[in-house]
């Protein structure tokens, strides 16, 4: 019987899916970074969102009391100084609705327990915190928060939840609104505003609450697992917000 010569050099005879016998453990050490040309693996070759939050470390995403992604508003610019108290406080004192700035806390709340502790200003403009469901703020095609133009801020994003806590001296009230993705509800509207008091927002067992030092308001009564992005409500001069603590609570 005549033997048939098989030409293994032709790619078509050797499709990758016919080679299950070559596995990572059989290639031990054979592919090293030294064998990869400089710049052969570039970010352009990694699909957007191929590296997800779930595949990065918890620490990278955890909520931190650090202001990032600063956005100027109403003529604010780098000539102004909008941070003090060792950069824990965002403050604008540039007249009524004069130049101001908003910021975002680094990380997010995750889906479990968290706590934010802060002091809203007692000034003419609103001072407080916004919390927006992940996906509700403006991002670019890479999923990064938009910094140019009108920036990352979005008020009442369709289909995404948003919470606003505010305090001021001109209305002289403590205020909280909850946007459920389609409708807005005022949960707190009580006088008077607080001057220097510490406020808390926290979630435990799916219940989301606000303490304004006078009383406690239940924002979401049960089942909340929203991954919240926290930002300052300081886009309006005069206002301030000092962050004292912000954390995902993993212990008891």
């Amino acid at each position, binding site marked *: 019987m005549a033997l048939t010569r098989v030409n293994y050099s032709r790619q078509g005879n050797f499709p990758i899916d016919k080679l299950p016998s070559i596995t990572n453990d059989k290639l031990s050490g054979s592919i090293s970074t030294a064998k990869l040309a400089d710049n052969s693996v570039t970010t352009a070759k990694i699909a957007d969102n191929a590296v997800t939050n779930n595949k990065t470390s918890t620490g990278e995403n955890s909520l931190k009391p650090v202001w990032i992604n600063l956005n100027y508003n109403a*003529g604010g610019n780098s000539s102004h100084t909008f941070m003090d108290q060792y950069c824990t406080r965002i403050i604008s004192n*540039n*007249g*009524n*609705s*004069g130049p101001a700035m908003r910021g975002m806390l680094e990380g997010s709340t995750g889906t479990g327990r968290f706590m934010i502790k802060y002091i809203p200003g007692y000034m003419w403009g609103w001072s407080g915190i916004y919390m927006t469901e992940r996906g509700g703020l403006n991002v670019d095609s890479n999923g990064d928060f938009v910094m140019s133009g009108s920036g990352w*801020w979005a*008020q009442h994003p369709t289909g995404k939840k948003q919470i606003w806590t505010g305090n001021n001296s*001109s209305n002289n*009230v403590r205020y909280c609104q909850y946007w459920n993705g389609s409708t807005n509800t005022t949960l707190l509207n009580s006088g008077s505003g607080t001057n220097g008091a510490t406020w808390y927002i926290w979630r435990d067992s799916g219940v989301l609450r606000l303490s304004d030092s006078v009383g406690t308001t239940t924002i979401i009564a049960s089942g909340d697992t929203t991954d919240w992005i926290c930002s300052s409500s300081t886009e309006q001069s005069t206002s301030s917000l000092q962050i004292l603590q912000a954390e995902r609570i993993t212990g008891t």
Partner: protein
Amino acid sequence: MSFDKYNDAVIARAAVLNGYNKCVFKNQDGTLNWGPETAHPTDQEMLDKISAAQSAYDSQAAGRKDSNGALSAPDEEE
């Protein structure tokens, strides 16, 4: 009604010219947000004062190095 084309500080000044000294700001859709207040100037009353408010803003801004025309803006440091 959208107030998008007006500066936030001009809007605050127009409110004051209507006798309203509390906080007001623009929503992202350009409408005015009066917070919890139910008694406040109407959109038309705001428009009626917007020209005077703009003039006051421009006049103050022209006299400052930082061009800040906002009401109650603190004095500039020498």
